[in-house]
């Protein structure tokens, strides 16, 4: 009795639910032809806000194209991408050799498009009055694997800094951010000391640094920008005079003109050559490159220059005309 009525309730719920999902066509854009179909995006959670913003805007132009964005992470996303399960992969680093190989094995050709910049920001607590700037060599000394257990005090990094322990905060080892930072600072991707506070959630790193006088951390520029009053930004000196002299603070300008080096990084989308032959995917990629510049700043990243977007678009058009059609 009871079980029957329970099943009945569930069944009624399902039908009600299915019926309320009727598509509503509200937008009236009047542009070219209305496309249908879907665009499947997955990958990096860092790039996610940009793709989300583009997908949201794309809906006002092509309301019947279902663009979905997932959060599997750069590596997890590439696994799906290399099986042809997604059309576009968000990536906060370049594709790895092994990932490229598995794409090849499954006959998937791809193109990398750069869509925005991010300035990995090195921050300390506002109460920290000794760190006024830092060199890449000093960062390396703090973060390299050999430092574990040996380099623990500020005074070991630079003479004149206090004889107290420092505490490091950084991205978790599964993230593209970690790979990029270690590559740029330690010199080898995915290698660093293990005794630091790691989190995939940058807001937790912000809280960590904001509450610890002896903290030093790194994360995306947007997280510094939104928490300026709780953090102190540290200018980074790469000791290379050719791209700006001295220690340089990350900002929209210095990231854009690449003087904030080596911690400026590109953010990418990878497109699948079979998918871009579908008109809705092709349209979406073009829309992405046309609008990423305006949208990236809104979600906290740093846009490339107009010429650079034009160059990416040209690269894409060449790919469209030369890649093998199925």
């Amino acid at each position, binding site marked *: 009795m*009871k079980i029957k009525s*329970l*099943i009945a309730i*569930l069944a009624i*719920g*399902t039908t009600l*639910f*299915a019926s*309320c*999902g*009727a*598509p509503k066509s509200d937008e009236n854009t009047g542009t070219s032809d209305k496309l249908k179909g879907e665009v*499947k995006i*997955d990958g990096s*959670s860092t790039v*996610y*806000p940009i*793709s*989300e*913003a583009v*997908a*949201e805007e794309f*809906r006002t132009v092509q309301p019947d194209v*279902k*663009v*979905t*964005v*997932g*959060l*599997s992470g750069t590596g997890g996303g590439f696994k*799906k991408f290399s099986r042809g*399960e997604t059309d576009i992969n968000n990536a906060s680093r370049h594709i790895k050799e092994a990932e490229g190989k598995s794409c090849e094995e499954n006959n998937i050709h791809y193109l990398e498009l750069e869509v925005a910049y991010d300035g990995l920001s090195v921050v300390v607590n506002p109460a920290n009055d000794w760190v006024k700037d830092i060199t890449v060599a000093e960062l390396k000394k703090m973060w390299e694997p050999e430092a574990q257990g040996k380099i623990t005090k500020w005074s070991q990094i630079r003479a004149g800094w206090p004889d107290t322990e420092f505490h490091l905060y950084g991205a978790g080892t599964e993230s593209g951010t970690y790979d990029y930072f270690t590559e740029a600072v330690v010199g080898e991707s995915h290698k660093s000391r293990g005794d630091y506070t790691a989190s*995939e*959630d*940058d*807001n937790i790193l912000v809280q960590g640094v904001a509450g610890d006088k002896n903290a030093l951390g790194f994360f*995306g520029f*947007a*997280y510094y*920008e*939104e*928490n300026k009053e709780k953090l102190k930004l540290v200018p980074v000196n790469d000791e290379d005079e050719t791209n700006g002299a001295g220690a340089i603070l990350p900002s929209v300008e210095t990231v854009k003109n690449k003087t904030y080096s080596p911690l400026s990084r590109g953010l990418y989308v990878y497109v699948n050559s079979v998918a871009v032959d579908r008109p809705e995917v092709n349209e979406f990629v073009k829309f992405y490159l046309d609008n990423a510049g305006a*949208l990236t700043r*809104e*979600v*906290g990243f740093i846009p490339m220059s107009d010429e650079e977007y034009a160059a990416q678009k040209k690269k894409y058009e060449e790919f469209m005309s030369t890649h093998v059609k199925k």
Partner: protein
Amino acid sequence: MSNRFEKISRFKDSSFKIFGMFCTFFGLAMLAIFISSIFNEGISRISWDFITSYPSRNPAKAGILSALAGTLWIIVITALAAIPIGIGAAIYLEEFSKKSRLGKIIEINITNLAGVPSIIYGLLGLEIFGRMMGMGGSILAGSFTLALLILPIIIVATREAIKAVPSSLREASYALGASKWQTVKSTVIPSASSGIITGIIIAISRAIGGAAPLIVVGALAYVPFVPTSPTSEFTVLPIQIFNWVSRPQAAFLVNASAGIIILLGITFLLNAAAVYLRIKRSVKY
């Protein structure tokens, strides 16, 4: 002498009582702090617009429609899949299977399964439902994965409920000439039903909160449509909340709190339903 012993044991008694009270209030206080801070931050964000809008880069325009719809779909299909199988397995194990060594092994394994981290079920679901059975990142694949996740909980709870039915009831049923199935159907299950329902609700509450296994199976984060069939792609509230919490803009944290309140509301409703059914159906012996 005896006076001293008495004093000591009385002291032990009262100190344990204080310790127990502290433990109880500690949990409650933490919960109260959490809920009040979430409510403080999020309650003003909840509006009809918030419930009926799709996700957006603009925190003030973003809503939870697709996530809420996904969560309701997932609850319904997970329940449809897990409840009959879970109860069936429990009835078999408790009433029909012979108490052999094999039965013992199965029993230990099911109890262990209840403690397996949910992400492992996600990987299992991705491989079996998503890839081998070709369901991809659909609601079905997600629901079946969560159904596997909560099956052990339902089985264990149902078995406990069935064990608690006094054997005198069964014997009375047999004495009237009832067969084994008749006894199970008309005597054991009705008397155990309040315990079974509680187990089901606890299990489903666990499924509602699961984000990790669903992300592995292929649930998305930005879904600008309401799923219309079980084969549709989807997102759920915990994923939307997780996504908002990790965004840099503080306004997204407010959205996350509002989302948490809605999620808490759903779990609360389910629990209220469980309490109601339990009171209505509880049998005193």
